[in-house]
């Protein structure tokens, strides 16, 4: 049994954690409702609440948001195509350089994104010099960078799920007459799916929120959403940025709720896999 003191300490600590985690979002969403005259300072709580700044969000920000969503989705998909076979191969094989190869797949996590960004830009200049093909400021160029930073998140979670995978499930499948590909399709992939989903969610968020690398791969008229916000903050701040940010927060919460309904957030966070037992 918890004593009263324990309960009070628990309550205060949990309350503090919630306030700490949620207050930035509440301030941003609150201040976006600022209804008065233009002000360069954030007003919280807002006076004369209104949605006026929501109608003043510049069109470029919506374009940037569209680009970001597409880039994040495609980059996550490509990263999954790389990470799933890589994880399957690495967990199940046993060769000398196994750990070296495994570290290569995790390496992008260890490199500061800003360094990766510079490296990619340099690489693209080099390719431009030799072949005349310019990748910086194009969708393929942006995707390449995002796949690079997103892959380790998928790779890591899938490896973790596979290490707990019960190999007898595959043996059972073989004994029932399914070959290697059929077993992969009907048993292995479905059982590691929660890991793929949760890794994919991480990868998507990392790609969607990236500034330090993307900032090097943009071009005028070709800017991802967080970079666009970053520029806006630097150059001409007004509460429409808060309004736009609030929209994205609401959008993300809605996404989470949908995922929760469809897949079950519990499964995602546990990245269950192996067995439902």
């Amino acid at each position: 049994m918890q004593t009263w003191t324990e309960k009070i300490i628990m309550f205060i600590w949990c309350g503090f954690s919630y306030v700490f985690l949620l207050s930035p979002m509440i301030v941003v969403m609150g201040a976006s409702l600022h209804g008065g005259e233009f002000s360069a300072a954030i007003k919280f709580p807002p006076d004369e609440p209104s949605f006026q700044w929501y109608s003043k969000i510049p069109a470029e920000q919506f374009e940037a948001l569209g680009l970001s969503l597409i880039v994040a989705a495609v980059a996550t998909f490509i990263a999954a195509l790389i990470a799933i076979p890589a994880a399957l191969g690495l967990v199940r094989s046993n060769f000398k350089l196994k750990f070296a190869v495994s570290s290569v797949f995790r390496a992008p996590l260890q490199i500061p994104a800003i360094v990766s960004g510079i490296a990619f830009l340099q690489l693209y200049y080099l390719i431009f010099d030799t072949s005349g093909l310019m990748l910086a400021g194009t969708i393929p160029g942006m995707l390449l960078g995002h796949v690079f930073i997103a892959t380790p998140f998928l790779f890591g979670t899938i490896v973790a799920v596979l290490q707990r995978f019960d190999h007898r499930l595959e043996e059972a499948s073989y004994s029932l007459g399914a070959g290697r590909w059929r077993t992969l399709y009907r048993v292995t992939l479905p059982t590691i799916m929660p890991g793929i989903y949760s890794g994919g969610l991480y990868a998507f968020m990392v790609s969607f929120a990236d500034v330090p690398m993307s900032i090097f791969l943009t071009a005028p008229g070709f800017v991802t959403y967080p970079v666009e916000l970053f520029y806006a903050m630097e150059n001409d701040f007004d509460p429409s940025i808060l309004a736009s940010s609030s929209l994205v927060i609401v959008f993300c919460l809605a996404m989470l709720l949908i995922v929760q309904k469809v897949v079950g957030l519990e499964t995602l966070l546990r990245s269950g896999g192996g067995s439902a037992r």
Partner: protein
Amino acid sequence: MSGVTLDKIVKRYGPTVAVDDISLNIKEGEFLTLLGPSGCGKTTTLRLISGFIQPTSGAIHFGAKDVTGIAPQHRQIGMVFQDYALFPHLTVSENISFGLVERKYEKQAIKERVDELLALIKLENAAERYPSEISGGQAQRVAVARAVAHPPSVLLMDEPLGALDLKLRETMQIELRRIQQELGITAVYVTHDQSEAMNMSDRIVVMNSGVIEQIGSPTDIYTNPQSVFVANFIGQVNILNCHVVKNDRETTELNYQDNKILTRSSNKLKTRTKIYLAIRPEDIKITSKPPTKSQNSLKGIVSEALFSGNVMKISVTIDGGDIMKVECPPKANSFVSGDQVHVNWMPEDCKILLG
């Protein structure tokens, strides 16, 4: 469906020999159990039959067909695993139909077969549940139904009842045996539990360190063990170190620490040969006075008397130091430790073992 033949099978892992030159003929429709302590090679033998591992040398036949080197998915086996290995993302009926889909059955045929099997395992109501939503005993039955959905040449079971509690295990033994007989399927069963092996099998193969110690029906193995290992592993037994005094046509006379012991003459053993004499605890009677008839008898002191319901388990320390375990009906035997007693048994109730 078919019988299974193992021909001089050897499986080595580096310098370790897991299975050492095993030959075995499993008859069609037979329930055969591989029994032995852990590490005796029984599971390796099962995995060799299933095709998950390949023998270092030797051949495996299903009926007339040589399946050596063939992958498990092309062997027509049914396999039941220790903790069932049900697919967690599929429902009970999807688990059962898994193999049927792989074997390209028609939709209607799949439905009919699944319904038939659900009835066989008495789980019609659980068809749409997931493995996480059913009990251990139910999961066990689903695993069996899945394994036999597409009738396999042979049904292989690797300690399938190991994870269940005692009561359920006994029910499931009967259930498994019923399903196997109803389908008339050849079954190979692996266990380390001798009572399970006795209850279910047509024949038992007792294995020890990679070799077959003895093959026979449960009665045969119990009443006629061929080695000290088998006698010890199947049930309880008392082993006395004796040597042969003389041998005639009907009886063999043995010497156990200067006591004369008679047994049925079964071997042509030379005088002075050292042998082990095996006597089951339930074949021994305890008396406070020396027996009158031509029984074997040794003197001793009761060192322990345990009442365990249907039997009285008494340990007697024989003059000379060996301890003999005796099991007898509790009512007629009210001995307590410290009592001076005689342990007696008939000459036909003991058996000479050479090793």
